[in-house]
């Protein structure tokens, strides 16, 4: 393990290529799993036949297998990749800005805000398609409120910001609970709110996948562009300034980008816990804290992990994927922690 890590740290590009390949294989494998099992070869053929350029050379498929793979499973799997990598990179950015390995994408109230938005939406009975808009607005609104509270004399004070986030998390969760308490007793109703709070990829269609894609691309690019500054942040804000970082600007861009990433993903899938907090950790254990390596590794870890968990969720009869991420992730994380205790520094 030790020498393995040395090798990985010396050849980060090969390691990233390996992870990318792993993700591809997992995507294909995941498309075979579900209420109907479709053989791997057939999945491969169906997907290749639909791929631009290559597809025109291959025989086309018709029928239910094609519908299941292309219209149901693929958008869901790709949404998993997008959400997983976005949450992981959002967490990496948050942990970098807060200089704290316990920060998560939800630390500024995104999840609690999104939860309240969804609960309100479900309570007043808006259409299923408007729910993401409700959740997104509430999530981003909460973060903006937290930012406003955390601003002291024209500067974003980290400690005040964290406390403001904590307070808003409690407030929003309290309001959500209140709505759950006063809402009608039908089981269906509560299940929808609960499912949102656990997070699920079930029922995702292309129309959910498409809007998240540009947000992910822009968000990941913006975080990656600041990897050098995030490294320097770890020397302390004052030292970072003295090393040439425009600290206030960096902080605002990073906090806004990571909140936007998290808010968008929460809007479409509900609150999928664990990924944003733990994937940066796992990545840091393997490639080290340097952000140019850490950010792409986190992104791939997040994508792989969430698709893997969602595959299991489908195998186990559609339990919300947020439950799987926590149940699978925590023991694995405890294992990593015990194994590396004392040597990683956090």
């Amino acid at each position: 393990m030790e020498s393995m890590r040395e090798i990985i740290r010396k050849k980060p590009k090969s390691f990233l290529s390996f992870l990318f390949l792993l993700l591809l294989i997992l995507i294909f494998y995941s498309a075979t799993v579900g209420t109907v099992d479709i053989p791997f070869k057939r999945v491969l053929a169906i997907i290749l036949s639909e791929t631009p350029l290559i597809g025109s050379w291959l025989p086309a498929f018709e029928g239910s297998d094609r519908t299941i793979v292309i219209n149901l499973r693929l958008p869901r799997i790709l949404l998993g990749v997008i959400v997983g990598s976005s949450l992981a990179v959002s967490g990496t950015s948050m942990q970098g800005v807060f200089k704290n390995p316990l920060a998560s994408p939800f630390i500024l109230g995104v999840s609690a805000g999104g939860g309240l938005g969804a609960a309100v939406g479900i309570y007043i009975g808006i259409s299923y398609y408007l729910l993401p808009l409700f959740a997104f607005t509430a999530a981003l609104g909460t973060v903006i409120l937290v930012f406003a509270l955390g601003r002291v004399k024209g500067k974003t004070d980290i400690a005040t910001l964290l406390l403001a986030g904590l307070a808003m998390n409690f407030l929003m969760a309290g309001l959500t609970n209140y709505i759950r308490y006063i809402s009608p007793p039908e089981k269906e109703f509560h299940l929808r709110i609960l499912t949102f709070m656990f997070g699920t990829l079930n029922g995702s269609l292309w129309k959910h996948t498409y809007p998240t894609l540009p947000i992910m691309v822009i968000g990941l690019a913006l975080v990656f562009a600041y990897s050098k500054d995030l490294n320097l942040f770890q020397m302390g804000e004052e030292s970072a300034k003295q090393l040439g970082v425009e600290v206030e600007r960096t902080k605002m861009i990073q906090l806004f980008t990571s909140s936007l990433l998290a808010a968008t993903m929460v809007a479409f899938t509900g609150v999928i816990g664990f990924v944003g907090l733990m994937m940066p950790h796992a990545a840091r254990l393997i490639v080290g804290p340097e952000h140019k390596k850490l950010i792409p590794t986190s992104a791939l870890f997040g994508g792989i992990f969430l698709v893997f968990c969602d595959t299991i969720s489908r195998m186990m009869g559609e339990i919300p994927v947020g439950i799987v991420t926590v149940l699978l992730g925590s023991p694995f994380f405890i294992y990593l922690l015990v194994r590396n205790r004392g040597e990683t520094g956090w």
Partner: protein
Amino acid sequence: MVELEVDSLVTGYSDEKILKDISFHVEKGDFLGIIGPNGSGKSTLIRALTRIISPWDGSVKYDKKNIEKMSRNEIARKVSVVPQDTFINFPFTVRDVVLMGRSPYIGRFKNPDKEDIKIAKEAMQATKTLRFEDRSVRDLSGGELQRVVLARALTQKPDLLLLDEATSQLDIGHKKEVMDMLKEMNENKNLSVISVHHNLNLAARYCKKILLLDDGKKHVHGRPEEVLTNSHLRAVYGVEAEVHEHPKDGSLYVSPVDKKIRSEKGGKKIHVVCGGNSTGTLLKDLVEKGYEVSAGVLNVMDSDLEKADFLDVEVVTEAPFSSITRESYKGNLQLIKKADIVVVTDFPVGEGNIKNLEAVKEGVDHDTDLILVDKDNIKERDFTEQNRGVKLYSEISRKKNTKRVDSTEEAVRSL
């Protein structure tokens, strides 16, 4: 290259004014020490010089350019800072941290090139951190980390280096090593240095000029011998101090004058022969027990001396890094003769301080109790030629009324 001009600078935090009208300038090759009591504005000045805080009035200029009009990268290429302490939460390697010093020169999407790596290597060599370049900064001692941060500051290739009590965490050996290295770079490589010092003697020994701050204002600015005078020190620090010339190189050093504040219990007199941070809590414990405590011979800047000063213990002092002179030998001997009990701690014995043992041999007579703190390791801590320390020690331990104890705590209990 660099010329720093501070003109009528006024600044502070929110509504508290800290610096009140400060002007001075630093030219290429200067080595300026900034001293002053706590709260006099030393660290605030360092922060104003790197635009961590902006001037309320007046200006800070580098090469005639106002700092308010410079980008952070531009400032970082001219000035680098070694802060008092650094806390890094994530396990970066030493090499990673030192290379961060190149960031003002490297574009957002570029990686360090060979030249950058070479500069970082040189800085690590100079600060003796190269041999642990692969280690995580989380596993370093305070002193090691401080040297890594210094290497990072040098890797910035500044014209001006700012040190904010940067050596206060280092032990006396590393303190001297780092300051000697900076002196060398200042003299041979034209690196200008501004260093804030809590320790007047460090400032006196290394700085070409000293700026003495008092309550956010410039009290006096000039050569060490102009600034470190009894009257200036009394006016600003409110203490009586003696200013001496170092017997070897003529540099100045300052020692507080014995304040004659003694325990009112009128207890027995105890003299502690010590040095090299060997006293632990001994001095404090003895003072608290009501003994009249004295100590010697201690070099200025020895941490045992800092404790003694703090406790108002009467001390025979010697210039920093200097051997015991005839004069301080006599002072020590007198205190030993006056004492009812003499305690000898397990300090390392070298050519410089073997006179401490000679004074014990000569001064301790029949009616004096002698307590030797010794873990039976005199051979290991004897660095004199021909084992003179060991021989002397065994002669001393044959004296009447001699007790051997394992630790300073046991020494206190045995009284």
